[in-house]
């Protein structure tokens, strides 16, 4: 487990949806940036906001909180926040915290986007 962390965030418009890809580690000192990016991704009120976790190797509770805050924001205007391909360790965290109950998970971003037609 690497303690020299970096987090790259990219946001892509896909039809009525937006995909936010997280690459690296959502460590405590980097979560403000993550939360700002998720907040910005909600501004265009996408029907579906997909967070692609396939290349994320770590997330702390501040990052989970950012996902929950984004979930609340999109829910307020009738959108959906979906997660795509979390690593096993992060999937386990989502189960332990029971956030999997409110944040649906899909194998790929494409599947997540296709689930909201």
């Amino acid at each position, binding site marked *: *487990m*690497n*303690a*020299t*962390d970096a987090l790259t965030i990219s946001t892509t418009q896909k039809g009525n949806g937006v995909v936010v890809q997280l690459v690296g580690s959502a*460590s*405590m*000192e980097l979560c403000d940036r993550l939360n700002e990016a998720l907040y910005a991704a909600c501004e265009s009120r996408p029907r579906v906001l997909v967070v692609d976790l396939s290349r994320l190797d*770590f997330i*702390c*509770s*501040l990052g*989970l*909180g*950012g996902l*929950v*805050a984004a*979930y*609340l924001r999109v829910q307020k205007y009738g959108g959906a926040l979906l997660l795509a391909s979390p690593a096993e*360790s992060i999937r386990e*965290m989502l189960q*332990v*915290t*029971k*956030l999997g*109950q*409110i944040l649906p998970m899909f194998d790929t971003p494409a599947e997540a986007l296709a689930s909201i037609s």
Partner: protein
Amino acid sequence: MASSDPNKAAAFHEIDIPSTLDAAKKPEREILRHIELCGYSEEASFAIKLALEEAMTNAVKHGNGNDANKRIKVRYAVDPARAVIIVRDEGGGFCHQSVPDPTRPDRLTLPTGRGIMLMRAYMDEVKFEADGTEVCLVKLNR
């Protein structure tokens, strides 16, 4: 340095840092280096990093109230058998028993409040001391 004899307790190291999340990376780096040297599994390393980040976040934000003039003291001992990490802040403390369960249906959609629960879920032992200004995390290397 950590001992190679599992029956001999490792000596404690101590790091005193300013109360910021950036500064909190220094003890994290050091502790994870010891963890790697002692051959802990990826799962154990993930768990220790997570619990340590939760403890440091609590110390910075809740304990020391985001006051960068305050300090955080981290003591740790890592050997091939177990890792012990103690994080102490300069705040007024809190009652850990009064922290509500973040998995309760009525709290599930709150963005905060999962740190202590994650520490407990991923470590073998979590103890709050000194009126809640100090948390002791223990992980066994299995």
